[in-house]
């Protein structure tokens, strides 16, 4: 008991310390490494709080994919800053930033006071909605309560999350131009590793997707694994031939939100209420949505890591 609370306290203090290091370090690379460490420690904290679903998502998306995206962005930033000499401007901007930084304490303190008040005014114990979830689990079509909430009871939120991911990719395609070319000299070790790991990652992603209906797992975890496989392949220098797959690329990217919206429209017509599945079909509908969502999430995350429109597409009319 003492050992466990000791571990929890050390974990909490470690989280605070790593978060502070990530925010306070002036070296961006260091800050990103601390951010990734923060995500991994946070995943451990979720495990300690008996929330393996969130732990999986945090480790895969929070630490893994976001970390890779940040590192990719940093590499682009350095490449685009290398040619410019902005020392004078930077010095001036730096001074202005330092001056405004002192004033930042006022809104920060106000926000901290507000948050503290909100936390302190919470009731000490609330049963939450878990009793209602447990009571309606039978009608949800799945036996994992987290999946039941995400894909059935609060399907709305998940649908919007998928749309947000798609919007992020559309924004990047519109703003960032073509993706940077693959690095000319990909390491042989990386090539071998990606060949070995990609099939394994596909297998684990399929398992997580399938097991999500009754145990921790599901579309977001499986999708982020697919995204990780994509990141590995992109790093190893592999590129899909997009000239011939432009249409299927877009179909897979929009499959998740598309199928979700189709199911929502279907349920609106059948039962007069959006995303209210008939209990007899709920299980199969959730599985169909999750398969489409997994593919979309995986491809969107890999596409985000690519850092721009895939090269080699013919100009669309």
């Amino acid at each position: 008991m003492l050992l466990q609370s000791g571990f929890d306290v050390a974990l909490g203090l470690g989280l605070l310390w790593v978060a502070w290091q990530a925010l306070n370090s002036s070296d961006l690379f260091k800050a990103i490494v601390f951010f990734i460490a923060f995500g991994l420690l946070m995943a451990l904290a979720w495990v300690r709080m008996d929330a393996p679903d969130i732990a999986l998502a945090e480790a895969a998306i929070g630490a893994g994919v976001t970390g890779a995206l940040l590192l990719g962005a940093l590499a682009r930033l350095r490449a685009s800053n290398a040619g410019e000499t902005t020392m004078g401007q930077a010095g001036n901007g730096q001074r202005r930033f330092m001056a405004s930084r002192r004033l930042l304490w006022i809104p920060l303190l106000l926000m901290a006071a507000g948050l503290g008040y909100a936390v302190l005014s919470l009731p000490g114990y609330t049963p939450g909605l878990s009793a209602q979830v447990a009571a309606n689990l039978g009608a949800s079509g799945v036996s994992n309560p987290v999946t039941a909430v995400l894909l059935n009871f609060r399907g709305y939120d998940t649908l919007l999350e998928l749309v947000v991911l798609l919007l992020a990719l559309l924004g990047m395609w519109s703003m960032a131009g073509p993706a940077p070319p693959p690095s000319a000299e990909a390491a042989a070790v990386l090539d071998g590793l990606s060949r070995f790991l990609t099939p394994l990652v596909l297998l684990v992603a399929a398992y997580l997707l399938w097991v999500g209906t009754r145990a921790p797992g599901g579309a977001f975890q499986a999708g982020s694994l697919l995204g990780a496989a994509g990141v590995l392949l992109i790093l190893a220098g592999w590129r899909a031939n997009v000239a011939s797959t432009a249409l299927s690329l877009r179909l897979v990217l929009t499959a998740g939100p598309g199928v979700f919206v189709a199911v929502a429209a279907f349920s609106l017509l059948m039962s007069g209420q959006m995303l209210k599945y008939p209990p007899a079909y709920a299980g199969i509908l959730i599985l169909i949505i999750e398969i489409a969502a997994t593919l979309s999430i995986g491809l969107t995350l890999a596409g985000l890591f690519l850092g721009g429109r895939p090269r080699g597409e013919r100009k669309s009319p």
Partner: protein
Amino acid sequence: MTPTDWIAALLLGMGGVFFLAGTLGLLRFPDVYTRLHALTKADNVGLGLIVLGLSVQADSWVVVGKMLLIWALVLLAGASVAQLIARSVLRRGIRLWRQ
């Protein structure tokens, strides 16, 4: 404590020593190559000993198999990543440490 527990405790303790030594090397060694050397020893042997120690006490062979799989994946990732870091550092022209 049964003999199994003693064996497990011994293996876990040895694994802990390897992790401690690896961390110490990471903090104290003079350059990136020697630090990688210390770190991979800790990851490979230390984790192996801890997996063995936990396997002795495991309830079923499925659990043992899962832990061995984790160890194998960490071996693969650790060795590859150490090589990639060393390669990229070497290409940037950072020399080996000499006394």
